[in-house]
């Protein structure tokens, strides 16, 4: 029975973590341009190299 005391908070905590992560990604605009995000991975960012 004591197992439940640990496992249930862990299960709920993990769920909440996922929910929190989703809210964070929503607020930081990661869902605003879904097609664009898929294309941006193809862009080479050629930053000038300091030598």
């Amino acid at each position, binding site marked *: *029975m004591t197992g*439940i005391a640990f496992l*249930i908070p862990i*299960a*709920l905590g993990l*769920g*909440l973590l*996922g*929910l929190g992560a*989703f*809210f964070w990604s*929503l607020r*930081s*605009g990661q*869902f*605003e*341009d*879904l*097609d*664009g*995000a898929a*294309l*941006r*991975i*193809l*862009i*080479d*960012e050629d*930053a000038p190299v300091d030598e």
Partner: protein
Amino acid sequence: MNAPAPRASIAALPESLFAVPGMRCAGCISKIENGLAQVPGIAAARVNFTAKRVAISHLPETTIPEIQRAIAALGFESQPLGDELAGFTDESSRELLKAMAVAGFAMMNIMLLSVSVWSGASGGTKDLFHWLSALIALPTVAYSGRPFFRSAWNAVSNRRTNMDVPISIGVILTTTLSLFETFVGGAHAYFDGAVMLLFFLLTGRWLDSVMRDRARDGVSALLKHKAAGALVLGEDGTSAWVNADALKPGMVMLVAAGERLAADGVVTKGNSQFDLSLLTGESLPVAVADGDLVHAGTLNVDAPVEVRITAAGAATALADIARLMEDAGQSKSRYVRIADRAARYYAPAVHTLALLSFAGWMLAGAGWHQSLLIAVAVLIITCPCALGLAVPAAQIVSAGALMKKGILVKDGSALERLAEVDRALLDKTGTLTLGRPELTNIDALDAAAAPVALALARSSRHPLSQAVRRALEAKAVAAADITDVREIAGKGVEAIWQGKLARLVRPEKALFGGDVGASLAVAFQLGDAPATLLTFEDGLRPEAAATLRELKALGIESSIASGDRAEAVQPVARILGLTAQTGMHPQDKLDTISRLAAAGHKVLMIGDGLNDGPALAAGHASLAPASASDAGQNAADAVFMGDSLAPVVIAIRAARATQRIVRQNFALAIGYNVIAVPMAIMGMVTPLIAALAMSGSSVIVVANALRLKGAAQ
């Protein structure tokens, strides 16, 4: 490394939004973002590829036309988006998505606890699990239930009922009773049922809202947002750009060829031809000279003119049409969506059933506690989980299929109304026809002349030159090398080709000795050779005749309602075999629609012009081509791309297929209730059975809706 989207805009700098419909690839994103960042006066540019928009933060002194030129220098056409769009985010979708995420999280965790209870947890463990469920469910219902509670309250306080009323009552009653059960340590709690219900319904709502957002983004990228201002001639002879809302009577506008007027006025200098087709439906450009009255929204096609403003803003003829449109749109907002119509019968039936089972069990001596439990089971099992999902799921799948075919449907109710139409009214200019001149005698140009003509046509933006260019490019003619290109305003272009003078000019009577016949024509002359007369006409859209035949096969009778002259409409009407009304003003078109509606017809209006705006708003459903005026596109229920008229039939077929699936889904939901409700009334439904029934019926209606993927054909 990949390039993350720059997010934070530089604070305190003004930000302007531009629609750039030409973005198609990853290269375009980096080209625009990096290219604009190097333009002096522009701090940062951020592309939203999905919405085909660029947000640009720039110094306050950088003007909109300057930025537009910078974007054009990168090779993209752009249109500034108005403030009303700039301040707009997809708020309602986002709220629904949040509510859905919370409900989904709660549903999974409560289900976790419920499954343990169902598989035999008892005594203290069961009570603990019920308490935990309550702890998760109560805030979830309070947060995720708000969209339903709000809408139900609105309906009830207006003495109406909609789908949200039984949902709200069901959820609140279930939660309250489950809480009571938890307090007294009862055997069953329905927290999982209540939260699952919210989750499924929010999914349906969110799909509906996403569909509207996507179509709105698509349409706003098409809008031309033109004539947002004019170049005004100052007293000292300099000219400055003035926004449309700041134009005042008495100012003198400089209107270049190819520009649309921003205000009504009188021509004070110059001769030109004006295209009134968006305003009146009249297909032939009208010649204007000193002292002629010209209206806002008309297009100057020929030569630059100066126009003294007589009326601006709300006083223009354009604004009258906008007012007419606003009034006409009210009939459409009275349309009740099919889900809400179903709810009118559904809600009282469900509530009566629940009440009757309560009364019945009380009379049978079951005690109020047991009777109440059974009544709540009836409420949960009948709650329109599948109904709430049945309609939006079908509509979004269908709208997605239509979008792939280039048809943007603005919302679900548009699909429902489109399926009901049985009468079509079509505008002529720009709807049945392309609304732009097309070269009719391309063969008049021989193999030697064609490359030169193409090179000349490319150097001018005049509509007739553009038509020559399109026709020759379609025949894969390669342009010749020409030098010394000169555009003579109001006359045409000329250049030197292999030492000879080549001219593409307005036909002069002297050149052809007599009347030139058709007034849409240009003359092409190479050296001393005799000039060739190129004629143009506004051609029918491809597949116009086939589309009208298919409309008839679908049981939809069509006719033409045009603002053009009878002589201009007649040939089109004869080719297509349609009856036509001609010379109609916007008010006449409105009257025709209300007359047909009074005779019991559901009218589909297809039109493009400003003059069609009120009729588009008044029609039971309406379609506009992507070439339509902004007002036309805004008023229409759906916008179709491309030249062909075939999307009209595709859209109606898809709408009818959607309606069929929606009805099937309703039948499925009713069939499920016929089995489940007697069980609930007999007191045989446990939370386990309710959960299985609810998710099972939802999966079935969604799967049925997915069959619409191929609906747009």
